[in-house]
Structure formats: structure tokens, C-alpha cells
């Protein structure tokens, strides 16, 4: 093996010989050229052994020159950018590329696991289902770890992906997959019609098979025709050509998924650029011109390095000027395969023999053989000798029974072509069989999609151009574009004569799925064991489940199954085709949405002020909320929170509660509307008043709660919990638009319009007087509990003031337009200074609500009724409302339901924890006496102990009972007392005062 491109032809190829690129494979340095793939550069350097197979660790080389490659998989790049299972055949060469073979130890050349080949007689399809059952404990301990280590292919980086990804949308009239002759012709026709066109090509150069097979189009050599076509397309402003972009999926409504490898051809993406971009392309029509995939023939030793698809060999020779072998044999069952012999001869390579499975060979080819001096053998390849050094000798079963041997270091194989039916089958359309080409062609394509060219079973160049052109023109027409399409590109149609041959019986392992090491005898075994359905075949043998998704193996596998089960290939049928057409990086599907950008972040109007204060923030849905405001010297969160609570209960504090959902309910029927969505009445609420409301789902379970105020006869201001804001808006719009369209009511979210602060504590009124215009009457008479109205602040700003209390203290909530939110926080600090004003966070808010026995999220858990929450009396009996009827069902009104109750440890020093279960004293915990659980806890500075709320069976009837808080998860079990859920100021004097 030499590192100097010894197998590079001196002329030709679409490589830039002025741009030499160095790369490393398994630690050895090689060179290649710009325009190479890793595979072509390896070929040019004479590297034949590239990987090891999945199960038997057999030496493998390069089989194809495209994304269907099963064997030549490498770990590309290194460190955090290591990409396992990268196909060398599609990896674009760049300077400094690093690649390593995979699934071998310690080295590719000497792989210990190749010992598996010795056990091959036992390691047949499905062997693991029949053993490893005893002793039962050994599976996880011994067998499975060994199997897991042996399986898998490459190694993932194991550290965070350092690259960025994004996603984008594109819209077009006509989307074209593939830039071979059919795709380019489709683009020409559609573009000339005036259609908006997007053409996706997975390769980094346009042309498809033209790049390797050439031809004459409109009297021009293919390369010139491509250049001319590209020039014409580039001049069309609404034609977008995307190379390095694979259309991988078809979704509903003409939405397509494509992956653009924006910078995979560079060592690292340039600054500010992404590695890959996921495209969602919306297209009125799609032309699938993704070509066809040449299929192997299954024979013993068909996985030997040096055995290569005939078309791939042409690609390496013609496109890359790299010779996979010096003395080539060709095994074909069709006319097209012969092109490889022609190519080899034209490039000065030796042709050892052509083995043609057909009864006849054309006179032209016979003449070629005699002129070039190689034999034409009628028959089939029986086996290939060779190992990791590559093929050496090919033995042939001649028609009639005799045998022959051919010395060659390369064997080109052509079993015919399978149209790429993936895209057209993703809506579960089943491709249909065509006898003349012995292949499946698209049928039942997704709406708006049509296949053209080789993807549709048209293998001649002229036919590809005609079909592509017509499909492009028709697609544009269907999309409403009627420009003059001009004339169709013209080329000759080559003959395509094929005699189907799938499998050459014989001794030795003959591989159907090379990556998964599925052999012809595995297929036969599956049939013998009853796994005859193609889906069973796939699942039992893993045929077609490797990284190539069976692109080179599926049809051969089911043809062999058909043969052994005595059915035809179409009767046997295909498995379901599933996207993506090529594997797509998970990072690309995620795009920008990772790390801190996983989801959007909502900030309260006072966020930056709170951050300045050193607040600790907590995630509440998308919100960041101030959780507490630590001060120097405080040893933990509990000390800070306790200080905040005490400051509120003894003086005054404030908290940004802008996260509450806020909805303007307008219209003459606003009151009637609210009567239907709340269990209690709102039409009777006086203007200037607020009322607590409870909403049920239609199934009678509590949905949400909040305070709603009547600001005008036809204007209510409704608040929701932070968690349910969006959902309640959606629910109310459903009620308004669907359930009660007869009501004249309008809804607008004003959640973001208002910065809302709760100001609480005995000194609240004193503080407010500093903020509010002195003309406003804030006295208990002038602004009583549950009052709500607009007020003017000092300086003239208008605000809304609500006398409502969550903390149980004398409290108001004040709303100012959001851009004043930060100023409000600052002003409250200034105005409150004489009163020791203390900003408090959600923890202190939570402590005070528990002390006060208010229910919140942990109690409104989607399974509790109004009765469970102790709010059953709010349910109006005078009106219908959402959830009324279902709330009355027997199990929801049963006397033994778990209801909200207060809980406190009998040992005042003991901490109470949420999630502890309630078990009667003296009983062994079990499913029969699990009577409920602790929902919310806090350390109550007022009671100087941990307290909580819980949902406990018949809890309200059991006040004073001592029960067990059972918490085996945390190894605790202690006595608690069930008590009134209102721990603090039960008669409510403080909030009314």
C-alpha cells in the first residue's frame, strides 16, 4: 500500500489536481484531490480494506460510490466532532480529514472479534432468541453486556456536539429531488414555465449518473450539457439549486424534509455558520428524480474487498480517475453492466473476463471482448477467493455445469437496477413490480409527487430526459405556471436487457445484507422457521435494518425469500419504506433549540431589577421568576425565605406576580359568559369588585382558578394561574367561538401589557399612600377587601389596584403598564424604605399561601374536584356551567374521597416532605391503607415548624387525628397531625383589616 495515489489515472476525472489534500485514515497519511470523496481518495491510494462487518467482523471494502454504501463506514473527524458510521462514499474530502475504521479491535488488519466467524455456524439469524435463557440472572450480567459491546458500529463522540445547526423553511411550486438527467430536465421545464423551483442534490456536484457515465445530450458531451443547463437555471431568479442537500422525507400537505450539509466539507464550520441545516420545503408538486441503485448479486464471497458494484467502479474510474483494481472481472446479468468493461478498457485497465448470466451477449460486446482479448463466460460467479487483501481469484460456474477460474483483483457486479422508491413510498404506497426490468417502480406516491427517470424505471438516457422534462413541465402546469417550456433535451436510449439473477447457490457465505451480515442461508432459515412475511424476515434476520436501510439488499432478500417459499417477488412484496432516506443528524432536527435555547424564556417586567438585587431565579413554565432574594450572611435559602415571610407578615413586602395570565373580557355578554365558565356567578359582581373564581373542565374536575374583577359594566379583567395562562385562553376562546357563539363577548390576552405586583403586609397601605395619588381613597371603607379599580399614581400614571390577598395579610395587587414595571419595583423600594419594604420571591409567596391554606398547582392536579379542595359550596345551583353535570358523578362525590387538609408533624422539629404518604397509625403500609399524601410543604415562620397541605381520605372529618407520614423513598416515617388547612389567621381578619 503506497500513500502516493498510485491508483490515480494520469488524466481525466472531475477532480482538481491543482488542489492536493492530505488526509489520515487509521493514522496513516494519504493525499487526494479536491473533488474526491474519502472513498475515491482511498481507492486512488490503493486502500481496499476499509471496515469490519457487524456480526462476523469480516473484512470489508468499498461496494458503492453513493449513499447506499453498506460497508465503507468510518468514524470521521475526531474528538467532540467524531461522527460514527460515516459513509466514506459520500464524505467529501477536505484537507486534514481524519477517519478511522470502526468495529474492530485492536486494528482493522487484525481484529480479534473476527473470531466470531468461527462461531458462524451457531450465530445464524435469530440464534439469540433460542439461547442465553439460563440462568435467568446471567442475561443482564454476562450475555447482554458482551453482546452490546460486540454490536454497534462506530463510537459516538461521547461529549457535547460543539457545532451549531439551524432550520429553515422554503416554498416552491416544484420541488425536484436529484440532479441527474431527469432532475435537470425537470428543472429546465419547470423553470422555463416560470415556476418557483427548488432542486435538491445530495452530491456536491450536479449531474447524477452523468458524472460517471457521460453520454451525448443535444449533441453535446454530458459535461457541457450540464454546464449549459446550470447556466440557464442559474439565470432564473426563482430557481434555487441546493447541492449537498438530501430530500429525506415527505410529510403531509406537500411538506418535505431535506438536510443540507452546509459545512461538512470543511474541517470545522466557519464562525457564525452552522454545520448542517434542516429544511422544511413546502412544495405544490414534487418530481422524484432520485435515480436508481444498482443491485448486487448474492454469491459466496461477494463481500470480499475488491468486489464492487459495476456502476461504482465506473464512478471511481471516470469521475475520480481512480482505479479500484488493475485487472477487473465483470459479473453482470444485464447490458448496462458492460459499460464497466468499456470504461476499464478505455482507461487502460485489464479486463480479465466478463461473466454474463444471460443466455446471449450482443454482437457489439462480443466484438469488444475479442478485440480486447478477454473471455466472455456464460454463467455466474460461484465464489471469490481473497481476504482482507482483496479479491484474488474468482471461480465461475459456467452454464452447463463446468467451472472456470478467473484471476482478478477486482470484480464488478451488476444485478440490474432498483429505482429509488423511498420518497414515493413514504405515505405507505407500495411500489409495483415490473417484469421487464425485474424491479419495483413507484406506485401510490404521496399527493403531488411523481417519479421520473431512473427513479421511475426509465433507464435510458433519452428516456430519463424525456420523463424528467415532461414531469417538470406537468408539475409546473399543475402549480399554475404556463410559460413556454421550450424543447426537450434529446439523447439516445441505450438498450437494457436483463435476465433476473438474485442468488448463485453454492458453498460459503453469500451475503444479502453485507452490513448486517445476513446471508442467503439466513433468509432460507427464516422461511423454514415460519418468518415468511417480509416484515418477519426483516425483523428476524435484521435484513435491511442497517445504516443503509437495505438499499442494496432488500430486493435481493425478498427475491430469495420468494424463491424458497415458492412465490413470485411481487407476491412476496416489500416492507414498509420509512423516512429518512439517508440518516440525518439528530442535532439537525433540533437546530437552534438546544442548551439554553431549548425553549423560549419569558422574563417578567422587573426581571433585570431583580437580577440586580441578586435574586435566585426559578423556572416556572417558560418564565424565570425570582425565587428568593438572598442577603449577605444568610446561610441557605430557608433563612432568606423565612426572613422574607417575616418581613411581609410584620411589615410590608412585594412580589412580581406578572406571570399570572390576564385576559380582558369585553362585551355586553361578558358576565353571562363568565357565569358559564366559572362554577360561581360573575354577572352579579358589582363594577369595582373582584371575586375569586373556580373553573372546571367539562368532566367536572377543577381546571384553574383566579381572581376576576369587573372594571366596567362590559369589561371584566380575568386572571389565571401562571401555569395555565395559555391553556385557559384557548379554553375560553373555545367556549366563546364554539360552545356559546350567541354571546357577544370579546377576549384579549393582556398578560404582557401589565406589570403586576402583590404588595402585602400590615404596612401595605402606608407604602401605597407613597405611590398612589393622595386623592385616591385607600381606606378600608374607600377601598374595601375585594375592591378593584383604576387609580392614579403620583406623577399621573394610571394603574389598576386590586385589594386581594394570597398571603393572608392586608394586601393589594397593583398593575402598571409593563414598560413601567421596572420603575415600579424601584419606586416601591424607595417609597417603602421607611417601612422596611422587602422584595420577596415565589418561595415566600408559597410559604404564605400554605400557611393560609390556599390551594395551588399541587392540589389542582387535574384529578381533584371543587369539593376535594374544600370549595364545593362555590358551585352554583342556579345556573349551568362547564363541568356541572359530570362533577356530580358518584365516584366524584363519594364520601371517602381524598380532600385537602392541613398536616403538621407532631414533633415540631421534624421536617415534613411533599410526596410522603398518609397511613393510619399502627398499620403496616400497603395498598389497602394508603390514604393520601402530602401535596405542599413549607417551613412556617409563624408556627415555627414545617407544615403542609395534603389530600387525605375523609381528611376534613379527621381533624386532630394523628397519622403516619410514610416516606420510604427517603427512609422516613413519622407522626403527623391532620389539621385545619388554614394555619394562619383562620378568620381572615388581617386581610380585611
Amino acid at each position: 500500500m503506497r500513500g502516493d495515489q498510485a491508483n490515480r489515472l494520469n488524466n481525466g476525472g472531475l477532480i482538481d489536481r491543482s488542489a492536493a489534500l492530505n488526509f489520515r485514515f487509521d493514522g496513516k497519511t494519504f493525499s487526494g484531490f479536491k473533488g474526491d470523496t474519502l472513498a475515491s481518495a482511498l481507492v486512488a491510494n490503493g486502500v481496499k480494506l476499509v471496515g469490519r462487518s457487524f456480526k462476523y467482523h469480516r473484512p470489508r471494502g468499498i461496494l458503492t460510490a453513493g449513499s447506499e454504501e453498506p460497508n465503507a463506514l468510518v468514524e470521521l473527524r475526531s474528538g467532540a466532532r467524531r461522527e460514527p458510521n460515516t459513509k466514506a462514499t459520500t464524505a467529501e474530502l477536505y484537507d486534514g480529514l481524519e477517519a478511522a475504521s470502526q468495529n474492530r479491535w485492536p486494528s482493522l488488519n487484525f481484529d480479534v472479534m473476527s473470531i466470531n466467524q468461527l462461531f458462524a455456524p451457531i450465530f445464524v439469524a435469530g440464534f439469540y432468541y433460542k439461547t442465553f435463557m439460563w440462568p435467568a440472572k446471567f442475561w443482564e450480567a454476562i450475555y447482554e453486556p458482551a453482546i452490546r459491546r460486540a454490536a454497534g458500529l462506530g463510537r459516538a463522540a461521547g461529549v457535547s456536539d460543539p457545532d451549531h445547526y439551524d432550520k429553515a423553511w422554503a416554498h416552491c411550486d416544484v420541488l425536484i429531488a436529484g440532479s441527474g438527467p431527469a432532475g435537470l430536465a425537470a428543472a429546465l421545464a419547470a423553470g422555463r414555465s416560470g415556476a418557483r423551483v427548488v432542486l435538491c442534490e445530495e452530491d456536491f456536484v450536479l449531474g447524477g449518473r452523468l458524472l460517471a457515465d457521460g453520454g451525448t445530450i443535444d449533441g453535446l458531451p454530458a459535461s457541457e450539457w450540464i454546464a449549459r443547463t446550470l447556466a440557464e437555471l442559474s439565470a432564473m431568479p426563482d430557481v434555487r439549486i441546493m447541492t449537498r442537500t438530501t430530500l429525506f422525507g415527505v410529510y403531509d400537505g406537500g411538506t418535505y424534509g431535506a438536510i443540507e450539509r452546509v459545512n461538512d466539507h470543511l474541517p470545522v464550520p466557519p464562525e457564525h455558520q452552522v454545520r448542517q441545516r434542516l429544511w422544511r420545503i413546502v412544495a405544490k408538486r414534487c418530481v422524484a428524480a432520485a435515480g436508481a441503485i444498482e443491485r448486487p448479486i448474492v454469491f459466496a464471497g461477494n463481500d470480499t474487498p475488491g468486489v464492487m458494484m459495476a456502476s461504482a467502479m465506473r464512478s471511481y474510474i471516470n469521475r475520480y480517475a481512480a482505479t479500484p483494481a488493475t485487472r477487473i472481472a465483470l459479473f453482470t446479468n444485464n447490458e448496462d453492466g458492460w459499460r464497466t468493461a468499456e470504461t476499464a478498457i478505455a482507461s487502460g485497465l485489464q479486463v480479465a473476463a466478463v461473466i454474463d448470466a444471460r443466455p446471449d451477449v450482443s454482437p457489439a460486446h462480443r466484438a469488444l471482448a475479442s478485440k480486447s482479448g478477454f473471455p466472455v463466460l456464460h454463467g455466474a460467479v460461484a465464489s471469490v477467493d481473497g481476504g482482507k487483501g482483496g479479491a484474488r481469484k474468482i471461480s465461475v460456474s459456467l452454464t452447463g455445469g463446468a467451472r472456470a477460474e478467473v484471476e482478478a483483483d477486482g470484480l464488478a457486479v451488476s444485478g440490474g437496477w432498483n429505482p429509488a422508491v423511498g420518497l414515493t413510498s413514504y405515505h405507505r404506497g407500495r411500489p409495483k413490480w415490473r417484469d421487464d426490468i425485474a424491479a419495483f417502480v413507484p406506485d401510490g406516491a404521496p399527493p403531488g409527487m411523481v417519479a421520473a427517470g431512473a427513479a421511475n424505471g426509465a433507464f435510458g438516457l433519452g428516456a430519463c430526459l424525456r420523463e424528467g422534462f415532461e414531469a417538470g413541465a406537468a408539475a409546473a402546469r399543475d402549480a399554475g405556471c404556463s410559460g413556454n417550456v421550450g424543447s426537450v433535451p434529446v439523447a439516445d436510449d441505450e438498450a437494457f436487457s436483463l435476465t433476473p439473477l438474485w442468488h448463485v447457490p453454492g458453498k460459503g457465505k453469500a451475503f444479502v445484507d453485507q452490513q448486517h451480515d445476513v446471508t442467503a442461508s439466513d433468509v432460507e432459515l427464516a422461511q423454514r422457521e415460519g418468518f415468511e412475511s417480509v416484515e418477519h424476515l426483516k425483523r428476524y434476520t435484521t435484513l435491511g435494518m442497517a445504516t443503509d436501510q437495505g438499499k442494496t439488499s432488500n430486493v435481493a432478500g425478498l427475491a430469495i425469500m420468494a424463491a424458497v417459499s415458492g412465490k413470485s417477488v411481487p407476491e412476496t412484496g416489500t416492507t414498509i419504506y420509512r423516512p429518512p432516506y439517508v440518516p440525518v443528524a439528530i442535532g439537525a432536527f433540533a437546530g437552534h433549540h438546544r442548551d439554553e435555547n431549548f425553549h423560549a424564556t419569558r422574563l417578567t417586567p422587573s426581571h433585570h431589577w431583580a437580577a440586580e438585587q441578586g435574586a435566585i431565579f426559578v423556572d416556572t413554565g417558560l418564565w424565570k421568576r425570582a425565587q428568593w432574594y438572598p442577603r449577605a450572611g444568610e446561610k441557605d435559602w430557608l433563612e432568606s425565605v423565612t426572613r422574607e415571610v417575616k418581613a411581609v407578615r410584620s411589615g410590608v413586602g412585594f412580589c412580581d406576580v406578572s406571570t399570572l395570565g390576564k385576559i380582558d373580557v369585553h362585551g355586553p355578554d361578558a358576565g353571562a359568559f363568565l357565569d358559564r365558565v366559572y362554577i360561581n356567578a360573575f354577572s352579579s359582581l358589582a363594577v369595582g369588585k373582584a371575586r375569586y373564581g373556580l373553573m372546571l373542565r367539562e368532566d367536572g374536575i377543577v381546571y384553574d382558578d383566579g381572581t376576576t374583577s369587573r372594571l366596567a359594566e362590559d369589561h371584566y379583567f380575568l386572571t389565571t394561574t401562571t401555569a395555565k395562562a395559555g391553556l385557559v385562553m384557548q379554553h375560553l376562546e373555545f367556549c366563546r367561538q364554539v360552545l356559546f357563539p350567541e354571546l357577544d363577548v370579546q377576549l384579549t390576552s393582556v398578560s404582557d401589557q401589565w406589570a403586576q405586583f402583590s404588595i402585602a403586609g400590615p404596612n401595605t397601605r402606608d407604602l401605597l399612600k407613597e405611590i398612589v395619588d393622595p386623592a385616591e381613597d385607600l381606606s378600608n371603607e374607600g377601598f374595601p377587601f375585594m375592591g378593584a379599580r383604576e387609580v392614579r399614581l403620583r406623577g399621573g400614571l394610571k394603574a389598576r389596584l386590586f385589594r386581594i390577598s394570597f398571603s393572608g395579610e392586608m394586601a393589594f395587587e397593583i398593575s402598571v403598564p409593563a414598560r413601567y414595571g421596572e420603575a415600579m419595583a424601584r419606586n416601591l423600594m424607595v417609597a417603602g424604605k421607611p417601612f422596611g419594604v422587602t422584595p420577596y420571591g415565589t418561595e415566600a409567596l408559597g410559604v404564605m399561601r400554605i400557611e393560609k391554606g390556599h390551594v395551588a398547582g399541587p392540589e389542582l392536579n387535574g384529578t381533584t374536584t371543587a369539593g376535594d379542595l374544600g370549595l364545593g359550596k362555590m358551585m352554583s345551583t342556579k345556573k349551568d356551567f362547564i363541568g356541572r353535570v359530570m362533577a356530580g358523578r358518584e365516584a366524584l362525590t363519594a364520601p371517602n374521597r381524598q380532600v385537602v387538609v392541613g398536616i403538621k408533624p407532631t414533633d415540631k422539629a421534624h421536617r415534613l416532605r411533599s410526596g410522603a404518604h398518609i397511613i393510619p397509625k399502627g398499620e403496616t403500609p400497603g395498598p389497602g391503607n394508603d390514604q393520601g399524601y402530602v401535596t405542599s410543604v413549607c417551613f412556617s415562620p409563624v408556627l415555627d415548624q414545617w407544615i403542609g397541605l395534603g389530600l387525605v381520605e375523609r381528611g376534613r372529618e379527621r381533624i386532630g387525628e394523628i397519622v403516619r407520614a410514610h416516606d420510604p423513598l427517603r427512609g422516613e416515617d413519622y407522626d403527623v397531625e391532620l389539621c385545619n388547612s388554614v394555619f394562619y389567621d383562620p378568620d381572615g381578619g388581617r386581610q380585611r383589616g
Partner: protein
Amino acid sequence: MKYSIFSLARAALSGHKNWKPTWRDAAPKDRYDVIIIGGGGHGLATAWFLASEFGIRNVAVLEKGWIGSGNAGRNTTIIRSNYGLPGNTGFYELSMKLWERMEQDLNYNAMVSQRGVLNLYHSDAQRDAFARRGNTMRINGIDAELLDQAALRKMLPFLNFDNARFPVQGGLLQRRGGTARHDAVVWGYAHAASELGVDIIQNCEVTGFTRDANGKVTGVETSRGKIGAGKVGMAVAGSSSRVAAMAGLRLPIESHVLQAFVSEAIKPLIPGVMTFGAGHFYVSQSDKGGLVFGGDIDGYNSYAQRGNLPVVEDVCEGGMALIPMIGRVRLLRQWGGIMDMSMDGSPIIDKSPVDGLYINAGWCYGGFKATPGSGFVFAHLIARDQSHKEAALFRLDRFQRGAMIDEKGQGAQPNLH
């Protein structure tokens, strides 16, 4: 045919020519004591338990396609018994115990792998909910551990702890949870049931029920003719409404699409099963090496067995948010299954209002882990005409009574369960 390493070695000597079919491909007889509609895991398990536990061997399993062609072969293979509500907790533990002996019971390696199932939490509220659930499990004799962040950092250092929108704070771990090879479960039950005389009839689609004058079901009409039966059980999750409609029933069920995904095979990367608590993503790694992952249902009614891109993106976003090292691992294949989404997220195993017809339905996306338990309690119900005690709350009339089993607390909106 007994499977073991010895039988394999023997077979190897004869070139594996002597293996018999894993199950007999039977043709329908005129009449059976019990017909099970649906040759998935649940149906085959039911047949096996009828034969092995309840002595009813004149049983047919009717499958419209090939066995395991429905959700049994399309799921993400997770087994666990970490449920929090009465009805579910005991039932799934019964199922877990049956998983633990399945391979010996069936003489078939279903690769039951108790590698642990970890639900991650990202907030105090989630931790508290997990504590409640974990304690329920412990009270029911099920293993559960509440782990904090420090423990997770040691155990799973690759999770995104420090650069995350919603940092992982801890998790609820059930070590006995894990995975099993889904197809092998189907084949194993088919193999064992067939050995006991159960007829497994593929390509036999039920098109209607035959009823007597009293309305009692007397058999089924199929694409392969009428077949009589003493009792008929349906285990056709995904198609429950369609089959029930043939008997004139409407069910509290909607059919939804759940997508699932597998990556290319890579060397072992992720040890157990884990579920993201701040997005829709869960993942395990198959023995073959692929990351098997999924998320939420697409959210709209569907029988199409395929989904759309927004959910693919949503799931991968969750994956990248939780495990940023999987960015360069490639998604290999996506597929979709039809979920029987019930109105409270829990299954229905009950006699139907039609005499002689028994319903096993509403598995949402949790049916795989239930396979052995479901088969056992359904067989019990059919054989004894009485609910097994661990399935006593899975009644069809629970919605009328208000006795829902709603783990997620989402109410009668199936796409939220």
C-alpha cells in the same frame, strides 16, 4: 421444539436444516372455545395464559396481517411498573413480575433487560410528584429510588446539567425497569401458545360478529370465513373502535399516531432507559446499538401509521437539550403506530355490554410493558368471567361512575395523556 444452546449446536451440525416453524401456521377450524382477535403481544399472551394457566386450549388467535404487525412491533420496548395510581400500580407490577420469568416460561429469549428506567425531574414540583409516585410504588412493594443531582452526575455524567434551559435536578429510578426485544415477545408467546395447541391464524381479518337471538356473540366473520366461538376477546389496540363498532359499540377511545425513532447503531453510549422531564423525549439503546427514542403523540386522530415533522423536531430538540452528545448521531428511521388513546390514559379490560365479547383496549402508548400482565388478567377475565383483582379498576363503566384512573390529570382529552 426446545430451544437452547445445545439444540443450536446440534442444529448447526445439520446446517440448520431441521428447525421447525416457531409456531404452527394454522388454518381456521369451525369453532373454538375462545377466539382472540389480534395477534399482537396482548392477544398471543392471552392465548398462552388461557392454555397454560386456565386450561383452555381450544383457542384461536386471529391476525389480519402477520403476527406482531401492529403496535407490538412498533414500540420503543420499555418495560416498567412505576405507576402512581390505584389500579395501575398493582397491575403493572404484576406484569413486571411476569416479565421477570417470561423467558423461562416461554423457552424463548425475549432479551428482557432490567437495566433501569429513570424519570428525570427538573423542578421541585416534579420532584414532589415523583416522590408521591415513588412512595406509592414502595408501599406496593415495588422498587423505586429518588436520586438527587449529585447522584445523577456520577451515574450519567453526559446529561446536560450545567448549560441547560431546564437543568436536571434528579430522578426517580426503577432499577427493575428496562427493555425487552419486542418482536421476540410476540414470537415467544406464539411459540409457546402454539406448543400448547393454540391455533395462530394469520392473514385472517375479522369483518363482523355473529350473534344469536339474544344478542350474544357466537363467533366472528372473517376474510377466511365464519368461525364459531364460545367467547370472543378483542386485543386490537389501535383498531379497538373499529372492531367494537362491528358489535355496535362506541368506546371512550380515540386513535392517535405515536412516532418512534431509531438511530444508527453505535457502540454502547447510554446505559438504561431515561425520560426527559422538561420536554418530550425518552431513550434507550438497543442491544444492536441503535438509540431507540420517542416523545409525545402527534396530537391528532390518525390511522395513518405515520406522523409529521413538528413532532420529529420536538423529540430531537428534547434529546439534544438533555443529551447534547447525540448531536452527531444520526436518526436512521422513523415510524408511527396507532395508539388506542383512552379518556383517562389508562386501559380498559372488561366484559363488554355485548354478551360473550370481552374488551382489552385503551393502552395509550403503554401497552408493550403491559403485555404479559394484560394477557394474564384478560385470560382470567375470559376464563372466569370475573376481573382479576389487579385489573378490577380497568372497567369500561368507570367513566360513567367518575372513577377515572388519570395519572397525568388531563381529563377526557386523549391527546394530552
